[in-house]
C-alpha cells in the first residue's frame, strides 16, 4: 500500500492511495462521514429569550455550529455513567446579549478553552432594541448516524485514478478533445501539433473526449486499485485526525469479531 499526500491543511486533505481494495477505501469513507464523533450542542437551557426567534429554532441553529473537538478529553455520551450530562461528557457554553445587536457564534463563551466555535462569524440571532437573550448550551459528543450536526466532514469522497491513453497512430491532432473537455485535462500544442494531457487528476472520467474524438483515438479508464481521496473537515477536527480515528474505529469493529470467535 502506498499513500502520497497531494495537499494538506487544517481544512482539507487530499491524497493518492495505491494498492488497496475499493472496499477498504469505501469503508473508511463511510466511517469518516458518520461514525467519527465530534462535539455539537445537544441541549439548550433558555433563561431568557425575548428575541423574535422561537426557542427550538434558535436551539437548532446553535446545534449546527461546528465546535473544535478534543476527542481524548471528553467521554462519549453513552459511555459516561452520569446518566444525563456532567463535566466529563459535556462542555457548557453560554450566550448572553441585549439588543440592538446581532449575536454571532463568537459570542458563545465556553467553559473549556479547548472547545470553541470553529468560526466566530456565524450569525445566531438578531436582537431588536431592548430584546435580551440568555442561555446555556450543552455540547456533547455524538456521531453523524444520529444527526448531521455531528458529522466531522463537509465532503469526503474518492475516485478511481484516471488513466488516459491516446493512440498516436489514430490521432490527427484536431484539438477537439481539448476544446470539449469540461475540466481542462488536455492542451493542444499548436507548435508541436500534438495533444498533451496536462491535468490528469482533474479528469472526472466523463468520457466526452473519447466520444467526441472522430478517430476513436482516446480511451479513458479508471484504475481499479488506485484512488484519489479527499476529506474536507468542518474544522472540528483536523482531517488527518478524522481519518486516523476512522482507522481505529474499523480496527475496533474487526476486533469485536475476533473476541466473539
Amino acid at each position, binding site marked *: 500500500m502506498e*499513500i502520497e499526500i497531494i495537499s494538506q491543511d487544517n481544512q482539507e486533505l487530499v491524497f493518492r492511495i495505491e494498492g488497496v481494495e475499493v472496499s477498504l477505501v469505501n*469503508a473508511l469513507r463511510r466511517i469518516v462521514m458518520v461514525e467519527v464523533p465530534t462535539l455539537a450542542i445537544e441541549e439548550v437551557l433558555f433563561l431568557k429569550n425575548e428575541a423574535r426567534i422561537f426557542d427550538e429554532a434558535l436551539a437548532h441553529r446553535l446545534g449546527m455550529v461546528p465546535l473544535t473537538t478534543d476527542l481524548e478529553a471528553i467521554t462519549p455520551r453513552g459511555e459516561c455513567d452520569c446518566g444525563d450530562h456532567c463535566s466529563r461528557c459535556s462542555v457548557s457554553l453560554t450566550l448572553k446579549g441585549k439588543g440592538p445587536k446581532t449575536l454571532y457564534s463568537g459570542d458563545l463563551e465556553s467553559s473549556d478553552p479547548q472547545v470553541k466555535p470553529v468560526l466566530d462569524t456565524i450569525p445566531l440571532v438578531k436582537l431588536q432594541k431592548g430584546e435580551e437573550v440568555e442561555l446555556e448550551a450543552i455540547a456533547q459528543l455524538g456521531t453523524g448516524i444520529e444527526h448531521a450536526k455531528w458529522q466531522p466532514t463537509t465532503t469526503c469522497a474518492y475516485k478511481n485514478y484516471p488513466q488516459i491513453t491516446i493512440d498516436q497512430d489514430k490521432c490527427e491532432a484536431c484539438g477537439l478533445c481539448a476544446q470539449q473537455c469540461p475540466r481542462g485535462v488536455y492542451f493542444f500544442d499548436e507548435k508541436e501539433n500534438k495533444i498533451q494531457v496536462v491535468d490528469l487528476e482533474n479528469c472526472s472520467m466523463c468520457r466526452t473526449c473519447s466520444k467526441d474524438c472522430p478517430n476513436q483515438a482516446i480511451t479513458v479508464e479508471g484504475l481499479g486499485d488506485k484512488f484519489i481521496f479527499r476529506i474536507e473537515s468542518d474544522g472540528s477536527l483536523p482531517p488527518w485526525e478524522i481519518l486516523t480515528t476512522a*482507522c481505529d474505529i474499523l480496527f475496533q469493529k*474487526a476486533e469485536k469479531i475476533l473476541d466473539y470467535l
Partner: protein
Amino acid sequence: MKIIKDEKKELEIEITGESHSLCNALRTVLMEDKNVEAAAYAIDHPIIGQPRLYIKAKNPRQSLKKAVKTLQKRCEEVKELVKPV
C-alpha cells in the same frame, strides 16, 4: 453477534449492529484467501436489517480470523501513512 450456522466447512454469523462498512471490507479480504471457496454477506432490510456473513472454506473460523487480522493490519497501515510526521 450470533452464530446461525456452524459446520465443518460452512460458517454463517450475524454481525449485530454492523453495516456495509465492515462486512464488505471483510468479504473482499476473505475472498483473497485461497482456502475460501465462497464469502458473501447480506443485509435483509436497509434500515432494520442485521448483516449476515457467510463463509464456505476448508476451515471457515480460521479463515475469518486471518481475514480480520489482515484487515486490522491494513487499517494500521493507512493510519501510519496518513499521520503527519
